[in-house]
Structures are given as C-alpha cells and as structure tokens.
C-alpha cells in the first residue's frame, strides 16, 4: 500500500518555513513581571517568551506598558516582581550596560542618538563593547588600537551600505531628518551584533516609502545577521506581515499571545482595539 504524502497547500509552505523559529530554543523568558511607579501599575503579571531567530511583536494601545516591558528587558527598569531569563541565565537586577554586554541592543521611540557626533561615529560607538585596546594603546593610537579602529570601520561601513546611508556618513546626526535618524539608530544597534534586538516603534512618523525600507531592513537584519527581534509597532499591517508571533498588552496585562492569524481573530484583542460594547 502506498502512503500518499499530501502536497502542502500554498499557505502552509510559509508555515513550514517558519517551523525553525517555532521549535528553536527560547532566548528570552519573561515570567510574571510586575512594575509599578508609585501607585500606577505599569505592568501586572506579564509572562511571555521569545525564541531564537524569530520576530516577536509587542502590540497594544497607548499606555499598555509596551515600552516599560522593553525597559525591563534591557535593565533600565527593575521589575518589582517576576523574573527575566536571557540565554538560559536568570537575572535579578542588571544595569543597562550589563544587558548590552549580554547581547541586547535597543532603539528608542524618541530617537536617542548622540547628536553631536557624526553618523559614522554614532555607529562606531555601537562597537564600544568590541573594542579592547587599552588606554595606553589608544593614547599613542598604535598597535591594537589602530588595528581595531580599522577592522571595526570595515564592519561599520558594511552596516552603512546595508542601510543605504553612505551619503550622510560624515554628517552630524543632529541635523538629519527624522527618518534617517531612525536608520542611523538601527545601524548603531546592529553594530552591537546583538542576540536580541529591541525595536521601539521603528516606523513611527514615517511615510509609506520609508516604512517599506525600514521593514526591509528589519527582515534582512533578522535573516542575514540572524538577529532575534522584539518589535513594538502601532501599524498593525506591518506587525502582521513581519512578525512570527505577537503579544498583546492592555493596561499592563497580557491579553493575547500567538501567531498573527490567531491574534487577528482573538475576541479580546478586537475588543481592546475597537472598544467593546
């Protein structure tokens, strides 16, 4: 008797392609996080995980606690309750630079570039953790210091090419238009070669064309640099297209978690976004 192997339906092809992500190890595990500012509870008992290699979106209405969530992940806030496990290591309290050392990079809702420095210098600064020349070598700029500057410059130039910002390489970022600043900021985060990249509204305030570019950069970063991405974004269309799985927060609580398709049809999500009656 012959076993008939069914041909995968066109929709399922993509599904199988993402099998990798579904079965990959968990890179970040968040358990029962709670954060309060004075009497305001910003996050209450939120748990979810991020798997290596996926694009994970965090969505929700304004004030849902999305940015607070990212701030906890990269050590800027310390949750009052709950635990964060990154790459298998559970951590109690951690300063942001330690999170960076562990491989977490970040971009910000309101661009947080070094305004007095050029594009090149900004992205080079992203390599801070990889530069190991000691003080004296830097003082005479010889040996390791000189070598490192050149090696890292190659890598930074690759990122500059990738983000198509060659023309503003030596421009002070303070004078750049918003869309380009967002790109430079992504470049700085990529320069860290992070294991986990946190993007806080990378497309806010952009026009359609710029959004398209940014989507492409995020996908490419995910595929080529194999960066795991956690993404906050308000444009639901973009979120549905980009992400593998989505967490929905509302008023500091998790109300849904699943694939884009599952989220689309979730009653509580629909209620949160459209209002329930």
């Amino acid at each position, binding site marked *: 008797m012959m076993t008939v192997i069914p041909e995968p339906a066109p929709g399922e092809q993509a599904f199988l392609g993402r099998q990798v992500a579904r079965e990959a190890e968990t890179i970040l595990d968040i358990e029962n996080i709670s954060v309060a500012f004075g009497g305001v509870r910003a996050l209450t008992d939120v748990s979810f995980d991020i798997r290596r290699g996926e694009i994970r979106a965090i969505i929700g209405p304004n004030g849902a606690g999305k940015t607070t969530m990212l701030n906890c992940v990269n050590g800027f806030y310390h949750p009052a309750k709950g635990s964060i496990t990154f790459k298998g290591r559970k951590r109690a309290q951690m300063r942001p630079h330690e999170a960076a050392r562990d491989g977490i990079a970040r971009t910000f809702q309101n661009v947080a570039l070094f305004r007095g420095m050029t594009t090149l210098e900004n992205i080079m600064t992203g390599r801070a953790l990889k530069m190991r020349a000691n003080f004296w070598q*830097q003082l005479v700029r010889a040996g390791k210091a000189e070598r490192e500057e050149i090696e890292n410059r190659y890598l930074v130039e690759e990122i500059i090419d990738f983000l198509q910002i060659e023309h503003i390489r030596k421009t002070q970022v303070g004078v750049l238009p918003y869309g380009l600043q967002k790109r430079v900021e992504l470049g700085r985060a990529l320069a860290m070669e992070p294991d986990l990249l946190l993007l806080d509204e990378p497309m806010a305030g952009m026009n359609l064309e710029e959004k398209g570019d940014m989507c492409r950069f995020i996908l490419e970063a995910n595929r080529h640099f194999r960066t795991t991405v956690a993404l906050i974004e308000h444009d639901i269309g973009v979120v549905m297209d980009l992400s593998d799985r989505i967490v929905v927060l509302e008023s500091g609580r998790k109300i849904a978690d699943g694939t884009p398709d599952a989220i689309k049809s979730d009653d509580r999500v629909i209620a949160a976004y459209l209002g329930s009656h």
Partner: protein
Amino acid sequence: MIYHEAGQFKTSYKQDMAMLPIVQDRWSVVALVTFAVAGLPILLAFGTDAFTSNYLYSAILIPFLILSLASIGLNILVGYCGQISLGTGAFMAIGAYAAYNVAVRLPQVPSILAILCGGIAAAGAGIAFGLPSLRIKGLYLAVTTLAAQFFFDWLFLRVSWFTNGSASGSVTAPAVEILGIKLESGTGKYLFVLAVVVLFSLGLKNLTRGALGRQWMAIRDMDIAAEIIGIRPVYAKLTAFAVSSFTIGVAGALWAFVHLGSWEPLAFSIDRSFNILFMIIVGGLGSILGSFLGTAFIMILPIVLTRVPAALGVPLSTSTISHLEVAVFGILIIFFLIAEPLGLARLWLLAKEKLRIWPFPY
C-alpha cells in the same frame, strides 16, 4: 585654489581616519611646529635684543602654552564628556603643590618626574571629586567642583605641611633641570613647555578620536543611550575626570615651576577656574584646536581692551577699565553661547570649508 583636495584619493580607512587627512593640513601643521620649535627661537635670538625676546617668552609664549594645556585638560571634561567643572584652579594648585613637595622633599627625583607626580596627584583628586557625578547629573557637579576649589584654597593656605612650613603659603620651586641641564633661559623654558604641550595635544587628540573619546562624547550627548549600548558610565566619566585633571595638574605644575617660579595659593584661585572655562567656551567646546584659539583670544583681549579707551580718547580710570574688561568677558561668553556654541574652532572650520570650495560659493 591652494586648498583644493581634488586628486587626493583615500584608498584605505587608515588614510580616511588619519588625524589630518588633507595634505595641505598636514604640511601646515608641520610648518607651524617647525616654526615654533626652530624658527621662532632663531628669529628672537637674532632679530631682537635679549630684553624683548625674554619678555616675549616669559610674558606671552610660555603662559600661552601652559594655559592652553590647562584648557585642553578642561575641554576633555567639559567639552568632550559634558561634565561641568568650576575647580580648574584647584586642580592646577594640586599639581603645583604636589610637584613642589616631591621636588623639595625628594631632591634626587628629576624635575620631569616631580611635574608628572603633580599630574598624578591632581588626577587622584579629580577622581575623588568626580565620584558624585556617578550618582547625580549635570549641574550638581558645579557645586562639587566648587567644593574642591574652596577646600584646596584653604588647605594650601592654612595647612603649612603642604607648603613646607611657609606660613603664608607662598613657596619657591627649585629650578627645573632636564637631563642635567638647568632651565634658565627663556628659550630653554619655552622649548621645554612646547615639547610637553605638543606631546599632550597629540596624545589627547588620539584619545578623543578613538574608542574612549567616543565613549566620552556618548555620555555627553545622551548618557542613558550610552549605557544601553554597553558603555559603563563609571569608566567613561572617571577616565574623563582622571585624564582631564592629570593634564590640568601638569599645567599647574608647569605654571608654578616654569612660569611663576615662586607663588602663593592665590595664583590658583577661583578666578583662574573661570578664566580657563571662558577659554574653552570661546575657543570651542569639544575641540583641541579650539582650546588653543580660545586661550590666545582670552589672553590677547585684555591687552587690546586696555588700549582701546586711550586710543579713542576716552579717559577711564584703571579700576573702571579693569571692571569693564571682566564685564566684556561676561558679554563675550553669553555672545558665544548664543551665536556660536562651538566657538572659534567652528568658525575656523567654516573658513576652511569656504577656502576649500573657493572661488565657488558652494
């Protein structure tokens, strides 16, 4: 046309990242340094009488170089790392008195080493008074550095151990000796100071355009973002404090040993702190070149100001002139902060840019 860079192709990142990537710049700097090292002393030796040349060395060139060094030091902290300091005078004083104590108590130690010890002592104090910057931000530091200023003013005036028993705090440094040669002539002192200043400028320029310099500037521009990309604020801030105070301390030791010879604590009062702060505001925050330009400007201005009323036929009393002089400094500071926060260094860059594309407007 002389400043066109057409035809100069950079084929490696090393060339692109050179300190002076444009050929004309390189030649100008080589020419300037050659002139300062050889041309000027020769000119002064043959062109003028001994009195004039000595005056030029001791009243203009040597003070200019030493104060430039102090400005560069302060600029590292304020201009590059964004931490305000009103205690420059105190750190110069620490450099001076530490070097003095080493030189007097351990006469076998060479002068250069004593001066470096001054720098090291100042660096230590700088780190100690910079520690609060780790917990607090911005303007609070103005107060902690004022604390340094007033505390050390008092210490060197009242605790006679530091002044080797001198009750008034005034002391005389032993003569500076380099490789067995006593520095006595103006030329010798000048060349020694010049060498120190050139070495410091080179080293600090290297630091500011390297990894550490980027860390400082990142802290200055946005400390939170800097921490999030992995920069340790403790390391970045304290290295800035240490490097800055070390430089200022060496400048203080040179000021005392080479320029003044004998001095009292008043030589390093809070007026000196403001004086040097003004130099970097006028010259350009975050620029080594600016530190030199600002120092020259602030030194030349009073000379011009004291002559202007007389030249215009306006009789003013000397006290009015000296008040007016300081008021003009104040106005200039406000003017520069409003009109050109990056100071003379920025104007210099703009001028160069114009020259580069001359005769076309853009």
